[in-house]
């Protein structure tokens, strides 16, 4: 068993401490809106040249794992997803925290993240060279079909009225069209603002729609009732609750690992689709968006399994599976290493270091997450008058820090105001976020497909993978009406 004996690679003290430190730094940075693990790795890159290559790569991989998990903490506690992949976690995580179940939400996030993370790592170490080839099978037509499948759940993504969800989704799709169009180079809705040429950055919109609009909601509550401090807030989930989420976690892990492998997509799309599917198959559909624990388990398992998934094409083909893995590939270069088909034959030790480094990172944030849940959940006990002004500072810093641009801060504030009024009008942020996340993919992949197909859209029929997704989309939209129609006919 070569695999097991290789655990010695990370067992020396320096490496262990590096992984420990990187994971915790990753969790903290991931938790802060506007600071992402990719950014942290990029900033640390030049310093890693003083480390052994194995140690440097293990530290970066651990930071990546920690960062993906960290985003959920602030998503749950203050409705400010620390990183885009945690956006879907806020849908139900924050309502749970408001209902006095912050500890349960955090505990579930930690456990489902770890399960997702570890399963995807096992897939990575065993099947990477084979699975990586999936990346080649996905051209623009396939991405288009996948994105359409994702969008098919738009109407039912939240328990709000389907019409409002669709309108919200369209708002999101509209926001995604801002900027220079990929295939024509025409700039749309940029109003000569330089910062908008590359599109509206996602993070400020995210912070605005979630956290900033929440601040307005909190500020508009005028009553000065002393809230009874709910000490149940620090309670962790029970074994039954974990058991009930088992299926959801496994399903999300599958979705996350698969979508993670696709180079164009990563944790954010995985979490969205994981959340959608959890709602579709859940018994408590109507509780989604109001604080359903499955709604936390699903996106967390999905976005963390996407880390292992994203590592598959990164290591096996040298194609980054996400923004963060792109930076990790940069780290390979600095150390004179090459990812790619040869890595598995020529440098198995490096592969095992990454595997064990990420595995260890998962266990570290499990411990950190479960112990920390009890401490972090107390944030939900902080009186509103103290908590939300500090969150406001976070919102400003988080949206500015990303690219040090005031335009991003304005985008955040505008999204906050729009988000507030949309929420008052009964809209949920979920479909809007989904529209933004999938909007660009839908548009770009369709535009590319049209060129590839010589303007002939019937060519989609020649693509089996794309057609499979189209059929799934059709079924998910029309299964119920058709079934209802048939049963009614039988009756008459």
């Amino acid at each position: 068993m070569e695999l097991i004996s290789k655990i010695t690679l990370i067992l020396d003290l320096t490496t262990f401490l590096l992984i420990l430190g990187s994971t915790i730094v990753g969790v903290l940075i991931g938790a802060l809106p506007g600071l992402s693990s990719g950014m942290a790795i990029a900033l640390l890159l030049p310093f890693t040249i003083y480390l052994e290559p194995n140690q440097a790569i293990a530290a970066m991989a651990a930071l990546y794992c920690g960062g993906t998990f960290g985003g959920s903490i602030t998503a749950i506690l203050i409705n400010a997803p620390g990183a885009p992949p945690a956006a879907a976690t806020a849908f139900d995580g924050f309502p749970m925290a408001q209902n006095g179940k912050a500890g349960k939400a955090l505990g579930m996030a930690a456990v489902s993240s770890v399960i997702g993370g570890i399963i995807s790592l096992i897939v990575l170490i065993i099947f990477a060279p084979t699975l990586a080839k999936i990346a080649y099978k996905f051209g623009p037509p396939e991405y288009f079909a996948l994105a359409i499948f994702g969008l098919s759940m738009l109407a039912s993504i939240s328990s709000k009225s389907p019409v409002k969800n669709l309108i919200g989704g369209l708002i999101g799709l509209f926001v995604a069209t801002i900027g220079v169009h990929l295939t024509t180079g025409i700039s749309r809705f940029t109003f000569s603002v330089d910062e908008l040429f590359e599109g509206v950055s996602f993070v400020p919109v995210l912070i605005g729609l979630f956290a900033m609009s929440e601040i307005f909601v909190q500020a508009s509550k005028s009553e000065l009732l002393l809230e009874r401090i709910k000490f149940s807030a620090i309670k962790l989930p029970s074994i039954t609750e974990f058991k009930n989420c088992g299926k959801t976690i496994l399903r999300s892990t599958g979705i996350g690992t698969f979508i993670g492998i696709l180079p164009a997509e990563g944790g954010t799309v995985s979490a969205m689709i994981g959340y959608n599917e959890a709602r579709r198959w859940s018994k408590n559909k109507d509780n989604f968006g109001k604080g359903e624990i499955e709604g936390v388990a699903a996106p967390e398992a999905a976005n963390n399994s996407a880390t292992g998934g994203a590592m598959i094409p990164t290591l096996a083909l040298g194609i980054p599976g996400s923004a963060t893995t792109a930076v990790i590939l940069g780290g390979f270069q600095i150390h004179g290493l090459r990812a790619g088909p040869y890595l598995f034959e020529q440098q198995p030790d490096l592969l095992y270091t990454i595997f064990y480094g990420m595995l260890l990172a998962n266990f570290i944030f499990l411990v950190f997450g479960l112990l920390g849940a009890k401490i972090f959940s107390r944030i939900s006990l902080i009186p509103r008058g103290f908590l939300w002004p500090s969150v406001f500072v976070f919102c400003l810093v988080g949206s500015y820090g990303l690219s040090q641009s005031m335009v991003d801060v304005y985008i955040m504030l505008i999204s906050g105001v729009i988000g507030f009024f949309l929420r008052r009008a009964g809209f949920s942020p979920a479909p809007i976020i989904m529209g933004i996340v999938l909007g660009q993919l839908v548009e770009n992949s369709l535009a590319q497909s049209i060129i590839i197909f010589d303007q002939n859209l019937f060519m989609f029929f020649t693509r089996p993978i794309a057609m499979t997704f189209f059929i799934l989309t059709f079924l998910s939209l029309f299964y119920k009406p058709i079934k209802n129609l048939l049963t009614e006919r039988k009756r008459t």
Partner: protein
Amino acid sequence: MRGIKMIKKIQSLFLSFALIITSFIGLGQVATTAVAEEFPSKPIEVVTHAGLGGGTDTTARMLLIRTRKNLKNNAYITPKKGDGGNKAMSYVKSKPRDGHTVLAITPTHLFRMARGGAALDIDDFVGVARTTVDPIVIFVNAKSPYKTIEDLIKAGNKKPIKYGGTNVGSVDHISGLIFAREAKTKIAFVPFEGGGAIMTNLVGAQIDAAGLNLDEGKDQLESGELRVLAVMADERLSALPDTPTLKEKGINASFATVRGVVVLKGTPPETIAKLEKGFLKAMAHPVYQNYLTGAGLDASSVAGSAAWDAEIKKIYKEARAALVSLGLAK
């Protein structure tokens, strides 16, 4: 009481954390007051146009590691993303011409300038040093019937070649168009989000050919999934001794992803000389050289002020001519 105390504790922790982060970000905004007498009198700011962790960002960071030691001075990177480098250029324009602000420049900036309406013009810069040179190589799928560049050109005359590259107006796009014009063939340009996506789609046979940097397709070339047909350079690459250049084939299209650093014109010559020396020494150090090798680049990537200054002006001129002839600029 205990509850309140704890709340206060958490609150102060929270705030101090926020403060630390604020000051961390604030580092990028060091005040620009002191008038320099002797260079360098304050930290050097390198302005990039790209995201953290991309090629430009990483190159700048690797360059600065030893530059700090050589100039006995601190240096940091300020990313100013937007509008094809124009955002970075207008930021640099607002700074004093004392050598403490350096712009990391790429063909993106030069093409942006050539399109017109940019904050700065080509004559506003002085080249200090070149950091990387990465010629564009024409790749095709190894299973495709195109064995030579002539095969590809011939095929394009029957049906436009689906040619992958990055966004419209980029060096990939323009080089593809110029190649088609000079070789008298036709291409249908398919833009992708980045080199990785182009390579994947080429291996997956979604497109016929693509202009990539060698490094972006090197693994797939070695594993036999891709084939190289020609290099868009004046001389053959040492890594690809058997691959002809377009120039040898009588096709006048030489394009590369070059990166380097420039300062504003009007910076004292002795300051430029000091900067140049500091950068060149940093790039001769194994730290930078190993980075170049890791990225599949040649040591000859590095060049000094005179050569680099002439080169950016030449690229600009060619870009301008190309854009005008293609009707993309007036």
